[in-house]
């Protein structure tokens, strides 16, 4: 509100600092999560915030955009102390936050969402054509090829993310705060996003962003601030800061190899899962085999049918054709329960929509998939459940300062670990993990990769569906590339590299398939 006045007061020291936080602390209930963190954001810079899962990055961003109020500490905007209005009203001041968990009205159209709360109206009547026109412009500028009248619920996660960005851009933000915007984006979409970010930076917008993909941080940011366990560790110019250095400061120790040594695949191992001529609405005639103890990567562009393929195998999506054999037993699974009982579990990439009960604590979530194991006929064994939680927290290093925290209040990375713990409770022989490290810090990534490798060494078969190429390459024995619902190619050994994957995913290697 007092922005107009304070803009005239040019403070020589903070002249280009647009938004500054001074000794912010934050507790939820009695649980402290931020300890006296100071942070500043200059006009025309991209300032990256990095730290492990649960370090407090999202919390800091929410405070700086008014969604949370700090327990103590002050915020300065244009050099003047402000109390940011709550619940997104800071947008009126030019501070826009794009949440880690997307915040779109699912049943409304793209246009309605972009203009939500600030519709163009003449005398109280919506000017639909004006809004439509404006949205078309914005969508073109972010390179998003969808109709403005599409309902959000029909979009892919990546498209939703781009709509959020389009929405923020339409608000002429002076400060744009983005919480893991690239977590769900493909490489190509990330390029488009970064082009937009760069454009906004040149216009003098101050941009704050979180990413666990350190190479992105190094590519797009001007300065980096590192948080660890709610404490400020350092703020450094990005130039000259190596990726290893960043990772080391984040986790507070030297990180050894990100990818574990993968034991040679045993070609003579039993076939755990064999799929013959599987077809669904978007998947056509897919056949492959998975051996015991094998880590099979599934690569391909978003929408190439990988998720649908495995959802069909697990009885989540209707199958039109195809035969499935698990450990020598032929038979499709009509329900997830049947698949689970046969030893196959699927870990969804949609943590919040399909993975966790957000309003429940860790306990109820952990045992849900394998609940019959925790019951004698109908009756639950609470002791056994409690013991399972204690075990899972240790085994997967789930960090929650408050053991009764609701799943929705856990940091993204810890939610992912909880989800992994949840499917492992079923004691599966075949684990299908869709995007295993989406939104996960390097330290945790390393843990998860090592965990996957250890499982494989025990003889568990693992399918890793991932859009992150280094990940697929780093941990798979074999990689299958899908394109348009079909298997475009299978790579083994030295042939597993980015060039090959990209060629198959883009359809450039078609002829070789028949050779």
């Amino acid at each position, binding site marked *: 509100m007092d922005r107009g006045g304070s803009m005239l007061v040019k403070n020589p020291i903070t002249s280009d600092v647009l938004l500054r936080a001074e000794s912010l602390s934050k*507790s*939820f*209930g*009695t*649980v*402290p999560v931020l300890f006296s963190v100071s942070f500043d954001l200059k006009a025309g810079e991209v300032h990256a915030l990095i730290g492990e899962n649960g370090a407090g990055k999202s919390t800091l961003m929410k405070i700086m955009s008014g969604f*949370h*109020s700090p*327990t103590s500490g002050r915020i300065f905007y244009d050099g003047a102390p402000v109390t940011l209005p*709550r619940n997104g009203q800071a947008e009126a001041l030019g501070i826009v936050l794009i949440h880690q968990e997307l915040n779109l009205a699912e049943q409304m159209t793209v246009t309605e969402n972009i203009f939500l709360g600030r519709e163009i109206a003449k005398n109280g009547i919506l000017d639909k054509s004006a809004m439509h026109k404006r949205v078309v412009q914005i969508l073109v500028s972010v390179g998003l090829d969808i109709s403005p009248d599409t309902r959000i619920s029909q979009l892919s996660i990546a498209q939703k993310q781009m709509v959020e960005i389009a929405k923020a851009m339409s608000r002429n933000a002076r400060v744009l705060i983005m919480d893991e915007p690239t977590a769900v984006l493909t490489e190509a979409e990330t390029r488009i996003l970064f082009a937009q970010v760069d454009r906004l930076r040149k216009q003098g917008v101050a941009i704050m962003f979180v990413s666990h993909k350190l190479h992105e941080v190094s590519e797009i940011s001007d300065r980096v601030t590192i948080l660890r366990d709610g404490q400020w560790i350092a703020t450094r110019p990005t130039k000259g800061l190596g990726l290893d250095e960043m990772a080391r400061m984040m986790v507070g120790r030297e990180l050894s190899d990100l990818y574990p040594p993968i034991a040679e695949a045993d070609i003579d191992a039993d076939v755990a899962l064999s799929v013959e001529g599987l077809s669904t609405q978007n998947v056509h005639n897919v056949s492959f085999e998975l051996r015991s103890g094998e880590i099979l990567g599934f690569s391909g562009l978003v929408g190439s049918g990988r998720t649908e393929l495995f959802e069909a195998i697990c009885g*989540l999506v209707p199958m039109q054709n195809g035969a499935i054999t698990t450990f020598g037993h032929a038979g499709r699974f009509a*329900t*997830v*329960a049947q*698949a*689970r009982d046969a030893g196959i579990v*699927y870990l*969804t990439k*949609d943590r919040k*929509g*399909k*993975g*966790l*009960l*957000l*309003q*429940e604590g860790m306990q*109820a979530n952990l045992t*849900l*998939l394998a*609940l*019959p194991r*925790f*019951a004698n006929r*109908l*009756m*639950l064994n*609470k002791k056994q459940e409690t013991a399972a939680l204690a075990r899972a927290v240790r085994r997967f290093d789930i960090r929650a300062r408050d053991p009764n925290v609701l799943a929705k209040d856990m940091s993204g990375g810890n939610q992912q670990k909880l989800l992994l713990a*949840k499917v492992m409770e*079923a004691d599966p022989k075949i684990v299908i993990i869709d995007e295993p490290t989406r939104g996960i810090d390097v330290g945790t990534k390393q843990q998860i990769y090592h965990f996957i490798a250890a499982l494989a060494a025990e003889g568990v078969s693992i399918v890793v569906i991932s859009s992150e190429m280094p990940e697929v390459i780093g941990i798979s024995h074999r990689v299958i590339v899908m394109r348009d619902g079909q298997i475009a190619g299978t790579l083994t050994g030295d042939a597993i590299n980015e060039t090959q994957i990209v060629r198959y995913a883009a359809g450039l290697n078609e002829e070789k398939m028949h050779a």
Partner: protein
Amino acid sequence: MPDTAQTQPASNKPKIDLKMYGPAIALVLLCILGFSLNTAFLSEGNITNLLTRSAFIGIIAVGATFVITAGGIDLSVGSMAAAIAGVMIILMNSLIDVLGTGTLTVVIGAASAIMLGALAGLANGLLTTKGKIEAFIVTLGTMGIFRSLVTYFADGGTLSLSFEIRGTYRPVYYESILGVPIPVWVFIMVAISGWFLMNRTTFGRYCTAIGSNEHVAQYSAINVNKIKTWTYVIQGLCVALATVIYVPRLGSASSSTGVLWELEAIAAVIIGGTVLKGGYGRIGGTILGALILTTIGNILNFTDLVSNYLNGTMQGLIIITAVWLQRADWGSKSKT
């Protein structure tokens, strides 16, 4: 630790207390009010009467707690009770010629009521799950059907239980065991089994999971349709049980039997703290909710402060206040 502890409890405690103990506090306050208006309120006779009357709504509301927790709704319970009562009376009357007026006739009547309840619930359940029709619509439909069936059976009038058999059946409503009326015993048993089912079994956990997010439930190997259907069957069984102990009270059924019971049952559930959109259910709260509703009516009977005709108004106000007290965030939103 100590420094954060200073600031928080003040803002956190009241919220938790109200959610957990709100219904109990409300009931105690009502009892104090009732006692101060008329000391006879806490007499043994009145308390017994109050509990007996709570039994019908209470038993039905326990069933409703499962339906609502799993994200459904059942509007048909009042009409279902009337229809079951009607069929039961017709059946028992016609059995007199064959089996006489003994216990057997009553037992067969009661057993068929239970069967009908289960079947009616099954119909509601299958139409919502397999038929993929909104629960609201399905049960709105069956509500009309059941209601018109009882009117049809009674030919627009009243179906009366034959006099000879009333003597046999009467004790089910009027007798006591160990000083506690039989309906109250049934209520207690239903409440305990309901609590156990909700809080100690996989079924209860699955209801909660489905009510909070059906997708997550499906991905977690839960047979969503089966569990949901079961909640309606349980609801039907509860309605049937309530009807079995209700019929001997008046010995008749008409088109006005059980009118608005669905609203009272849902109100009891909501007052008790169960979330209407599902995902969180409290059997204990539901029991208190049923007691609260009956107590209000009872207090109005005792005093002439407020006209008895305003019973509905008082209940409505209590429901809205109760929910407001539970939903209001008591400053927790402004704290975070």
